[in-house]
């Protein structure tokens, strides 16, 4: 591995564990892969949350809103050559069968299929900061027509 970069084998092994934890809807397992002071942000909340306990709640929020949610991995994660960081493509597939609290939206039964990427910054083999990038406007479009007619 290049000086300062992230090891590809470590990253691929870590990513397998990360997505297995998410796909088991296991917030504790996700939090265990993060540092105590982890920072997490993404379009759904529109703000940053910090700490392992907040991560447990964050996973729970998605699992409640989307009880069949699954993250698929279209290609291997990308390790930075210059810092302890990665970019990780994913595809989210789920049905909105529960209340998704950030939007205060009752279940619509809408299908959401969304491509995005994560940025992961590592410290001591754990994610210290995570930032999700995806088009939240597309999620709202998927849910809104049914919300309007409800």
């Amino acid at each position: 591995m290049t000086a300062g970069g992230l090891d590809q084998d470590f990253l691929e092994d870590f990513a397998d564990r990360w997505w297995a934890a998410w796909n088991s809807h296991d917030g504790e397992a996700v939090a265990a892969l993060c540092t105590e002071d982890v920072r997490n942000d993404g379009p759904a909340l529109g703000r940053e949350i910090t700490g392992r306990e907040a991560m447990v709640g964050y996973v729970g929020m998605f699992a409640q809103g989307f009880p069949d949610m699954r993250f698929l991995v279209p290609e291997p994660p990308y390790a930075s050559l210059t810092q302890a960081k990665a970019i990780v493509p994913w595809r989210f597939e789920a049905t909105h069968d529960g209340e998704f609290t950030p939007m205060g939206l009752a279940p619509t039964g809408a299908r959401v299929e969304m491509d995005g990427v994560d940025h992961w910054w590592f410290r001591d083999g754990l994610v210290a900061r995570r930032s999700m990038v995806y088009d939240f406007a597309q999620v709202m479009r998927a849910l809104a027509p049914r919300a309007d007619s409800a």
Partner: protein
Amino acid sequence: MGSGLDQGFLDAFAPRWWAAWNCRDAEAIASMVTDDLVYYNPALDEDLHGREAMFDYAAMLGQAFPDGRFTTPEEPYASLTQAKGIVPWHFVGTHAGDFVPMGFKATGGVLEVDGVDHWWFRDGRICRHRATFDFAQAMRSIGATTPA
């Protein structure tokens, strides 16, 4: 370079790409994509096809955001398994002209958004381009509501 993308090639290509966008040089941008390019970003309803469509879109974006500027927070990432790169960017621009695809009139607001590009290459040019960013955030930044 196996079946992956050469990092040196990508490191050289990316600055040329962003320089072309930041100079609003639609011709230079079009010359860096294949004839049969497929292009998508969340501001569009559907894929754009072909070099001419890329030229027209770049020119339109240039007049909609005449001071628009892409900066890169870090180096681009070359795939180890395919002729592809993922490229983080940050965009800031004043919405001083109409943004035709969405029918937005100029708002004068400053649009600021972070995203990543996915670039698939063939013969040294981008043959498929997909940008990922939060269009809802982009619209909020200029004070516009997201069209349903």
